[in-house]
Every structure is written in C-alpha cells, then in structure tokens.
C-alpha cells in the first residue's frame, strides 16, 4: 500500500509517516502544502492521501479543498482528512456523494496506532472511516419522535460502529460477537429505521449518515 501525507506540523508529519512505515505502508511522499499534495497525488498515484484540513498559506480550507479535488479527479485515491476539530458539516461535505474511499478523523486518533492503521487501510481499499465523535453527535441529536429510540442498546452500538465505517467482521471483533449475530443486528436496524438494505460497507455508511443527519 502506498500513501502520501500532507501535514504542516513537522512533529505530526514524521509521527504519522513513522507509524505507517512500521505497519509496512509505503509512504511515497510527505509535504506541507495543498499544491505539493496535488503534485504528489498526480505523480505517484498513491492508494491513499492523508490530509491535514488546515494547510498553509491561510490555514483556512486549503486542505479540505485539496481533499475534495482528489475525490473528484482521482477517484481511485482514498482520502483521509485529519482535523483538530470535528464538524458534522465538514463530514457531510466530504461524504456528500459517496463515502467510498474517504475518511474524516480527529487528529487525536493517530495515537490509537492499530485502529488508525486499520482505518487508513480500509480507506485505501475503498472503504470509509468517520470519527466516533461525529457519529455520536449525530446519533444523540435531538429529533421529533426519535426513531432511534426503537433500537435496543446493542443495536445502537452496532449502528454507531457501522456508521464509523467498520465492516461486519470489524464490528464482530470489536463487540466480541459472531459475524452471524452482527448480520442479524444490521438487518434488524435497517428494518426498524425503514432503510433499504445497502450493498457495500461504505454505501451503508452514507445511508446511515444521511439518515442520522435528517
């Protein structure tokens, strides 16, 4: 797996590169600016680009714009956006059309090394990753006649993990239950929420995300 990293803090850039290399990821390029990132994506065709949402020169939205550009122009390249603030609005913008090969995580997550590497791999393979804070914000959002109240506590747990972009196997490992049990919970959740059962894991993410947003 090949990755490029765009992050203007030297400490974090080297930290992320180091932990990825230790996990046998080929870090083909590290850079500090959005322009440099686009150049490296075009030249190296990496499997995944890891992008800080705040990049020089203005530290406003350069990182997000670069991420959206990669999503539009290089659909084969997965994009993981790292940020020091997690915003529902930004997640919705990043996943506006599809959750395939996209992720949005709080920067703090890099210190959960194995989880972080797993998320990077998932995105590189076309899956997705959404920060748990975003999911929990959306799940706990107040609604009129909240349909989520029909879910059992276990189903809520599965919904949250599903929304974070995890596969059924990932959910099973996390909750220490069988794959079969996860499948049962998932179909029960989709039934209760009136969602059509989706195909791939990331399509499932988008469906749940849009459902939670409304």
């Amino acid at each position, binding site marked *: 797996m090949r990755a490029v990293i765009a992050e203007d*803090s030297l*400490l*974090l850039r080297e*930290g992320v590169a*180091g*932990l990825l290399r*230790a996990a046998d990821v080929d870090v083909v390029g590290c850079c500090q600016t959005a322009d440099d990132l686009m150049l490296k994506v075009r030249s190296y065709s990496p499997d995944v680009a890891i992008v800080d*949402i*705040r990049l020089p020169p203005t*530290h*406003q*939205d350069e990182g*997000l714009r670069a991420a959206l550009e990669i999503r539009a122009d290089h659909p084969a390249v997965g994009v993981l956006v790292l940020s*020091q*603030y997690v*915003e*529902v*609005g*930004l997640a*919705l*913008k990043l996943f506006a059309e599809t959750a395939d090969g996209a992720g949005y995580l709080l*920067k*703090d997550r*890099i*210190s*959960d*090394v194995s989880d972080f590497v797993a998320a990077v791999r998932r995105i590189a393979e076309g899956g997705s990753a959404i920060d748990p804070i975003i999911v929990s*914000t*959306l799940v706990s*959002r*107040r*609604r*009129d006649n909240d349909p989520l109240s029909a879910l059992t506590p276990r189903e809520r747990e599965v919904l949250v993990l599903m929304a974070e972009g995890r596969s059924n196997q990932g959910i099973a490992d996390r909750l220490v239950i069988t794959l079969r049990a996860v499948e049962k919970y998932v179909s029960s959740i989709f039934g209760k929420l009136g969602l059509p059962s989706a195909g791939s894991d990331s399509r499932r993410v988008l469906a749940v995300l849009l459902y939670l947003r409304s």
Partner: protein
Amino acid sequence: MDTIDPVTPGMRAIGAPRADVLAAIVVAALAAASCTVLVAVTSDHISEPGVHAGLQVWGILSFVLAGVVAWWRRPESRFGVLMVLAGAAWFLSTLSSANLAVPYTLGLVFDLVPAVAFLHVVLAFPSGRLERPFELALVGTGYVTALGVHTVGMTLGGFGPDNLLSLASWESPSHWLENAELIVLSGLSLTGVIVLVFRRRNAGRPLRRSLALLVDAFALALVMIAFLFLSAVFGLVSGETPFETIRRATFFFVGLAPLVFLVGLLHARLARSAVGGLMVELRDNPTPGDLRDALSRAVRDPSLTLVYWLPEFGTYAGLDGRPAQLSAEDSGRAMTLIDRDGVPVAALLHDPSLEDEPELLAAATAGAGIALEHARLHVELRARLEELRGSRARMVDVANKERQRLERDLHDGAQQRLIALSLDLSLLGEELAGETDLKDRLTRAREEIAASLAELREIARGIHPAVVSGHGLGIALEQLAALAPVAVRLTVQTHGRLPEAVEVAAYYLVCESLANVGRYAQASTATVDVSRENGSVLIEVTDDGIGGADTERGSGLRGIADRVEALDGRLRVWSPAGGGTRIRAEIPCAP
C-alpha cells in the same frame, strides 16, 4: 479628507466703484451718443442717417448703461467694466460716418472691433475673465484680426480718399484682405457659439434660469454677426436693402444682449421675495433635511448642497454626520461660507452663477440663521454617533483578530504537541510486551492527554470558531444544530460566503440563542434561518417554548447585540409569555 479653505474661492478684492466715477461714465456715454447722432445726421456717405444713428445709440447706451449697473451691483466681477469698454469701442466705430478725415480714419480702424468685443463679453460672462486658454486665444485672435490686420489692410489703400493710413493704392488686395478678416471673425463668432453650447452641456445639470436666458440671447447675436459678415463677403443676400436690413437686425440684437443681462439682474432682485417664503417655512421649525430644500427653493438652485462645520472634528459634514468630501476646486461648484458672529456654521455648495447674486445668498443665509445653527447641532450629534459606531466596530474587529490569533497559537502549539506526545506513549507501550502494569499506566496517561485535548478543543472553539472562518457559516451551523438541546430545523441560504465579521457575529448569535433555548425555553423544537435580502443578512432563531424571555437576562444576548450593532445591524427579540421566542438580527451586507 479635504477641508475647505476658509476663504470663499473666487473672491476678488475689487472695491465698489465710486459713485462719481459711475456718474462720469454715464455722462460720457450720453455725450458719446450725442456725438454719434451728430456725426450720422451730418454724414455725407451714409443713407437713412436717422435709423442708423438710432441703432448705434441703442447699442452704445445699452452696453455702457448695463455695464455701469453691473459694475455698481457686482463690483467683484469685471463684467461691468468689460461691457462699458465694449460700448466705448462701439462708439469709436461709429466715427466712420464722419466727414472729417481724422475721425473717419479712427472710426475705420475700430470698424470691426465691436464684434470682437461682443464675443469677449459673451465668453467672459459672468466673471469678466476668460477662464480657459482656448477662449483667451479665440478672443486674442479676434482683436489681432479686427485691429491689427485691419489696420495693415488700410495702409494698402482703399476706403476712399479720407483714409489717412493709406500708403499705397492696392485696392484689390486690400479688399481681399478685408474679406478674409470678415471670414475669420465669422469663424470666431461661430466657435464662440460652440463654446457656449459645450459649457451648457458640461455643466451637467440645468443651468439656473437667468443664466440660460442670457446664454441664448448671446448665442443668437453671435450667429447674426457671423451671418452678417459672411453675407457681406459672399453676397448671400442680393441687393443693398436686404443687407442693410440684416445689418440693422444684428445691431438691434447685439444691443439687446446687455439688456437681457439687466433683466437677469432685476430678476435676482425679485427673487429676494422668495427669501420671505423661506422665513415663513422656517417658522415651523424645519428638520435639517427640509432646511436644505427650503434654501434650495429660495435661491432657485436645485443642486444646492449644505454642509455644516464641526469645530470638534475640524471638518465639514453632511446631514449623516459623515465628513463631506469636498475641496475648494470641487468640480465647478462655488462655495459660500455662513457664519454667526464670526464663528463658522455651515457652507453652501451651489451653482457658480449664484455668485452673481450675492444679496440673494446673503439674504437667504441670514434668514436661515437660527435654523442653520439648530441643524448644525443635529449634524454634530450625528457625527459623534458615527464616530462611536466606528470605534465600536474597530474594537470588535480588533477583538476578533486577537481571538483568531490565540486560537491559531493553541492549534499550532499545545494541541499538536499533545497529540505527538500521545503517539509517542502509544509507540512506547507497544515495545513493552508483557509488562501489563506499565502498559496500563501508559494507557491512563494517554487517556489524560485525550481528555486534555478535548478540553483544549472546547476552549479553542470558544475563543474563535475556526470552522466559521475556514469553511463558512453554513458548515459551522450544522454542528450547532446537531449539538442543540432540542430538535433544530436549519436553513442557510447565503449564496456564498459572507464577510468574516458578519459570519462570526451570526455564529455567536445562533450559538447563544440555542443555548438559551436549552436553558430557559422548555421548547421541543427550534428553527434557525439565515438568508440574504435587500443588501442585508437576516438571522432568525425561533423556538416553541414558554416565551417571556428577558432580553437583558444574562450578558450573553447583550454581548451578541453589541456585536450586531457594531456591524450597523439590529437585534430584536419577541418573547410573549406562552408564545415561544423569536430572535431576529438584520446585518447590512452588500450583495
């Protein structure tokens, strides 16, 4: 900004002429007119001496007497003197009717000068000066042609046996030269008409009525002079009698022009009765806006502008209290200062033609005295409010920038370092295979760091919502709506980004309003609407709670109102008991 030089521009320090000088001029004019009549009736080379003399006397007296009156009434303008001199030139030209060789020759020398003098008078109206180099060149060429070239032509011969200047007898070249002079003078006259037309157009607004009348009269007379000269050269009309008719009509019209000026003068005197109307209007304690309109009507200048002197600020200001951007050379406007007991109160910017009616201006401004002082105080108050608003906006701006800087420092400093530290501890833990106790302690340390990071995130967000400046109001409000204590329906239609100060103020407004909904409203749902219309941004937050909100409750909403007002906006709260709460802010924002 430009401040006005406290001296009225264009003021010329020419004293009023002494009465005996004026009387002497009148006597001289009457004597000259008598002389003209005498010369005409005794002339052996003109036909119908009565009609001829009558027209000449009409022209001479018209110019000289109108000039005397103008000089007397408008001593600061050279126009009156110029008219008197034009009348004198006219008189000299009439001597060509004389039988004696000396006056005859003198009259011939001055034969064409009155036409040029008339052009000079026309172009020098109303100041008596030729303002532009082109006009100066036009008139200069005229005098050189009518006096210089003409005199040279006379030395070539022609003009009869009494021409004392004749040195040769080349009558034909002399005749051709005279024709050439007439053509040149016609051209100059017609150019003068074009200059008048352009002046009128360049004024860019309707000239005041008396001036327009005058210009038309002058233009007509100039065209007639040109026609007269050209028909003399090219025989445009056949026969002696029609030519003589044109000649007489031209004399009549040229003589009429100064009288039109006199009519204009009398008109100004009549206009002063309009000042009486002004006094009546001012009795009803007019608003400062009405005062300008009333003054404008009284002096018949719709373009009139009134600015007030603010000693504290050292500037003139308009009704809105903002400094008036004007200079003494302000695009062809004239200015009159108004003071009370030597203290400046206001200044009038008006059509330059009003300078020719100083009594009217003086009467109108004197009549408006108290009302002007009243309006000045009003403007001073507005200027102070304006200054206050400006300083408040600057303070909010400075505070915003400072908060933004603090947030950046946190983001680039402590937060990044803590994340890197947590990563280090995590990597360290992986190397401690089997030492469960140490691994647990490392995990607890990392949890502490995670908690610190979460706290720092909240603090940073409270200091400055970086998402707002980075990604816009719409994205930032999604998070507020998702975190709100009640179900929120969010609609944001801003058509692109708004100015940052407006976005930040709107963000804090929604943030505080939704927090209040959670604290007091006992509501189940709320709506947040952001829209743009008519150059404003509207932000509205409503809930279906118990209402009865105290707008002064807590400093939260008060602080938000300060932010909104510093941007020239307005914040209003409706909160009837039992009827929910509606908070609405309107912030001006150019589309």
